């Protein structure tokens, strides 16, 4: 089994285009998902009773295998970007919501009291005190959500799409029995995921100079 290097050098443009598509398929759902989950997290902090139901709903969506989720939407939205974006966004919600809540909860009560004592309004407290202190844990959530989304985005194009990203190389390569193509898609998506993970690890370390290596590991 040989790799057709000539094919790779001929198609660098297409490779770049698919990589860019993959980035869009990752960044857009993450941004929207983060915004939604942040709002939900703030709501859950104010009204603790909604934490359970939100976790349950986002959890159920998260349990559904991605191929099935995309399949559900194909009859409705066809092969448009929406079919990919909607599941990709909702899959980020569980991870981001949980980590955002953990982040907000990690703010020590004394700090909040001190802010109240200094006369901060609730909004100022949120923006100036709670959110900044919650950032380390929120970055941890973004890290997991990003690599998960990169992986899910590879599946997005299995059912067919014009905007397939690197997964399209994989699917096309498989149906064309062309190992160079599908291996390229696979390797590039793995590299992209590792790169994103590394970036977020660095970000995590910069954001928490005071936290020792007593990391908890979540299965």
């Amino acid at each position: 089994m040989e790799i057709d290097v000539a094919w790779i050098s001929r198609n660098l443009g297409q490779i770049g285009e698919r990589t860019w598509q993959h980035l869009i398929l990752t960044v857009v759902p993450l941004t929207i998902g983060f915004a939604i989950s942040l709002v939900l997290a703030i709501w859950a902090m104010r009204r603790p009773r909604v934490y359970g139901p939100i976790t349950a709903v986002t959890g159920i969506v998260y349990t559904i295998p991605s191929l099935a989720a995309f399949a559900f939407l194909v009859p409705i939205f066809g092969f448009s970007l929406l079919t990919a974006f909607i599941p990709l966004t909702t899959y980020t919600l569980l991870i981001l919501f949980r980590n955002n809540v953990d982040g907000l909860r990690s703010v020590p009560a004394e700090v909040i009291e001190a802010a109240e004592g200094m006369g901060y309004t609730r909004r100022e407290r949120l923006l100036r005190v709670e959110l900044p202190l919650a950032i380390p844990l929120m970055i941890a959530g973004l890290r997991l959500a990003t690599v998960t989304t990169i992986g899910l985005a590879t599946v997005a194009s299995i059912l067919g799409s014009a905007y397939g990203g690197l997964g399209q190389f994989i699917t096309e390569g498989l149906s064309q029995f062309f190992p160079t193509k599908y291996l390229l898609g696979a390797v590039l998506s793995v590299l992209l995921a590792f790169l994103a993970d590394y970036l977020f690890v660095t970000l995590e370390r910069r954001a928490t100079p005071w936290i020792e290596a007593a990391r908890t590991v979540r299965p």
Partner: protein
Amino acid sequence: MNEVISWFSDPASWQGTAGIPARLYEHIWIAIVSVATATIVALPLGLVIGHTGRGANLAINLANIGRAVPSYAILVMVLPVSLALAPTLGYDPSLGLTFIPTFTAMVLLAIPPILVGTYAGLRAVDRDLIEAARGMGLRETQILRSIEIPLSTPVIIGGFRTAVLNVIATATIGAVVAFGGLGRFILDGRTKGIAGTGELLGGAILVAALAISVDLALAGLQRYAGARSARATAAPIHAPA
């Protein structure tokens, strides 16, 4: 909606090697085999790493790699290897095309959660308990068996939950490399276009139902195990201050 109902009510959908029961069986079977294999590898390793505390870096790094790598990518990266090894190891090349890549990818994706769950569960056990047990003269294996494992069972089951979820999802994607399972319905329905809408949605519903029900069952098991371990350690350990 109508198409789904007519697909489910069509008796032909339920018969033969491409019928719903057959595909369901394929899906569950490969899931069980994969998780069992992963458990044999990851559980003992996790117990050793968790009990001794050494090799923690291995566990954490493996967890990060396992979470980051796209399952679809692993699936197709195994494909040329399993095809090439067919003549050497003497198995039917068609297995190297369908079952082996899917199985390998599923095992590789199931190992990190089980390993990390076991490790994290053991690490979370109160060190005082273990010291007390050592002071009482218990041997290391006894400590592992009678204290650490019972107390960490909920977290270990949590690791299993993640592993099983990964495995069910990857088995669905396995249909792309011509493996059977419930993913087959989704892909075949897609190929048939409008006529296959019922099959497409029906397959998706079956996959989602399988994943959700298994996850709920494991969640219940986790809670039951949590209640039991909480009762087991209900005796007061610390003297009143």
